[in-house]
C-alpha cells in the first residue's frame, strides 16, 4: 500500500478485474458479444439480466470454465484469459457456481478441506479457516461429518460459499446464490453476502432478484443477449426506468428485502 505521488494511480491501482470486449461461443451460439466490465478492489458489482442474457457464460469465462474466442481478461494487471480454472483459483478468483456444485458424496468437512486445496501445504491455515467458518455457520459444524448432499439447499449454499472462501480469494464470484432456495433462505444468503461486503471483500454477484442485488451492490451491469446495455451505480440502476420496467416489475413480491 505504498502512497504513490500521482493522483490518478490509486484509482487505476484499485481496479482488480478488467474484462475487455470478450466474445464467447457455445458451439454456434454467440453467447457473449464483446462484453467489457471492471471490478475495483472492495466493491460489489452485480450482473443483472434475463435468463440467457449471458451472465453465467460471463462468469464461467472469467473463471476459465469457458474459453473466450476473442478479448482480454486481466486480473491484477495480469492476463488470465485461456487459463485453466484450476490455475485461476490460485490467482485469487473463487467461483461459487450456479447450482452450488458441492461434493455431495463427501462430508461437509471434506468439502471445506477441498476448498482449501490451493493452500494444502499450509495445514494450520486451512484448519483455522475451517474453524472460522464453523464458528460462522454453526449448522455446518453440527453436520461436519454428514454427507454434504444430505444438507438442505440453504445449508448447501452456505457450504458452497464457505468452500469458495477457503481458497482465500481476492475476488469472490457468486452465480445465482439464491436460486432454488426457500424465501427465508434467500434472505439469509443475501444477509451473508451483505456481511461479506462489510468485511471489505470484493464480490462479483449474479442474481436473479435484480432488486435485492442492486440494493447490495455498489455498481451494476445490465446484460441483454450477450451485451452490456446499461451500467451504473446500484441505486442509480434501481431507479432507472428501463431496469424498473424490465427486471424489477411493478408490485413484485419483495420477500428478499431483509
Amino acid at each position: 500500500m505504498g502512497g504513490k505521488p500521482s493522483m490518478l494511480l490509486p484509482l487505476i491501482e484499485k481496479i482488480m478485474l478488467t474484462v475487455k470486449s470478450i466474445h464467447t461461443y457455445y458451439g454456434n451460439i454467440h453467447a457473449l458479444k464483446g462484453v467489457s466490465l471492471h471490478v475495483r478492489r472492495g466493491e460489489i458489482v452485480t450482473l443483472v439480466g434475463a435468463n440467457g442474457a449471458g451472465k453465467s457464460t460471463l462468469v464461467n469465462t472469467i473463471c476459465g470454465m469457458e474459453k473466450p474466442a476473442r478479448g482480454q481478461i486481466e486480473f491484477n494487471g495480469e492476463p488470465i484469459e485461456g487459463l485453466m480454472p484450476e490455475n485461476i483459483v490460485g490467482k485469487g478468483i473463487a467461483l461459487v457456481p450456479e447450482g452450488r456444485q458441492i461434493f455431495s458424496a463427501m462430508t461437509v468437512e471434506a468439502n471445506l478441506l477441498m476448498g482449501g486445496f490451493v493452500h494444502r501445504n499450509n495445514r494450520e491455515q486451512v484448519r483455522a479457516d475451517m474453524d472460522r467458518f464453523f464458528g460462522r455457520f454453526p449448522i455446518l459444524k453440527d453436520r461436519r461429518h454428514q454427507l454434504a448432499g444430505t444438507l438442505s439447499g440453504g445449508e448447501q449454499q452456505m457450504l458452497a460459499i464457505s468452500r469458495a472462501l477457503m481458497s482465500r480469494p481476492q475476488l469472490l464470484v457468486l452465480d445465482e446464490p439464491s436460486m432454488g432456495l426457500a424465501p427465508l433462505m434467500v434472505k439469509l444468503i443475501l444477509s451473508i453476502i451483505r456481511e461479506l461486503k462489510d468485511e471489505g471483500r470484493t464480490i462479483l454477484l449474479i442474481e436473479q432478484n435484480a432488486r435485492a442485488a442492486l440494493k447490495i451492490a455498489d455498481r451494476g451491469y445490465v446484460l441483454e443477449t450477450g451485451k452490456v446495455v446499461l451500467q451504473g451505480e446500484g441505486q442509480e440502476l434501481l431507479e432507472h426506468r428501463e431496469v424498473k420496467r424490465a427486471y424489477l416489475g411493478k408490485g413484485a413480491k419483495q420477500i428478499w428485502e431483509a
Partner: protein
Amino acid sequence: MGTDFLQYVISGITIGAIYAMVAIGYNIIYSVTEIINFAQGEFVMLGGLFAVFFAGTLHLPLYLAFICAVAVAGCLGLAMDRFIIGRARESSVLSLIIITIAVSILLKGSAMLAWGKDPYSLPAFSSGGPIMVAGAAIQPQALWITGICALVVIGLTLFFRKSVYGQAMLACANNPQAARLVGIPVRYMVFLSFILSAAIGAAAGVIITPVSMMEYERGALLGLKGFGAAAFGGLGQFFGALVAGLILGLAESFCAGYLSSGYKDAVALVLLLMVLFLKPEGLFGNREAARLKKF
C-alpha cells in the same frame, strides 16, 4: 476333517487376498472417474508375465523383477489413460467402460503374441518348505501374499481418508467441475488413479505367479472375480473390497474342497448376482452415498 477345513481356510485367504487386491484396483479408478476399468484383470496378468520376463529372461533378482513389473504396468496404466481413455474424455462413463473392454482385449492379444499360450511360473519369494500348523501346510508365499495385500489395503485406506491428495481424488470423482473450481488438477488425479490401480493389479499378479502360474488368458477370470469382490464389498470401499475378497476366496476354496472344484468359478458369479439383487450398494457401500452418485 479339521485339518482339511484349516487347509481350505488357508488357501481361501490366500486367493481371497489376490481378489481383494484386484478389487482395490477397480475401486481406485472408480473412485476417481466412476469408470469401471475392465482391463484391470489384464494388468494382473501383465504384472505376472513381466515379472517372469525380468526374472527369467533378464535374470534380475526377484525383488527387482517385482519392482520393474509393477513399474511397467504403472506406465501402461498411464498410457491407457493418456492415449486411449483421455481421448474420449467427453464421452459418457458407459462409453468409457466399453473402451476399457476393448483395451482388455488388446492387452490380452498382445500378451499372447509376446509370451505365447504357455503358462509361466516364478520361484517363491522366500525358500523353505511349508510351515505346518495343526496339520495344515502354509506355503511361505501365502504369507507374502496376505502381508502385501494387508499393506496395500491399509496404505490406500489411509491415503484416501487422511491425505489431501486422496480426498482430492475422491472429489474429482464426485464432481469434476467443482474439483477444478477449487484448484484440483483433475487430469493429473486421473493419471494417478490409473497408475496406482495398474500397479496394484500388477503387484497382485506378481505375488500369485509362484503359486498358481500365469498365462495370457488368466486376466479375464481374475478381473471378473475381482470385480465381483469390488461390487460385493461396495464400489469404492477399500475395506469392503478386502472383506469381500476374503469371503469370495473362502467360499471358492470351500466349494472346491467340499463340493467340486468344477463349480468353484461359479461361486464368484453367484455371489455377485446375489449382491446385485439384494444389496446393490454392496456390503459396506453407503446407501446414501450411492444415491448421490451418478453411476
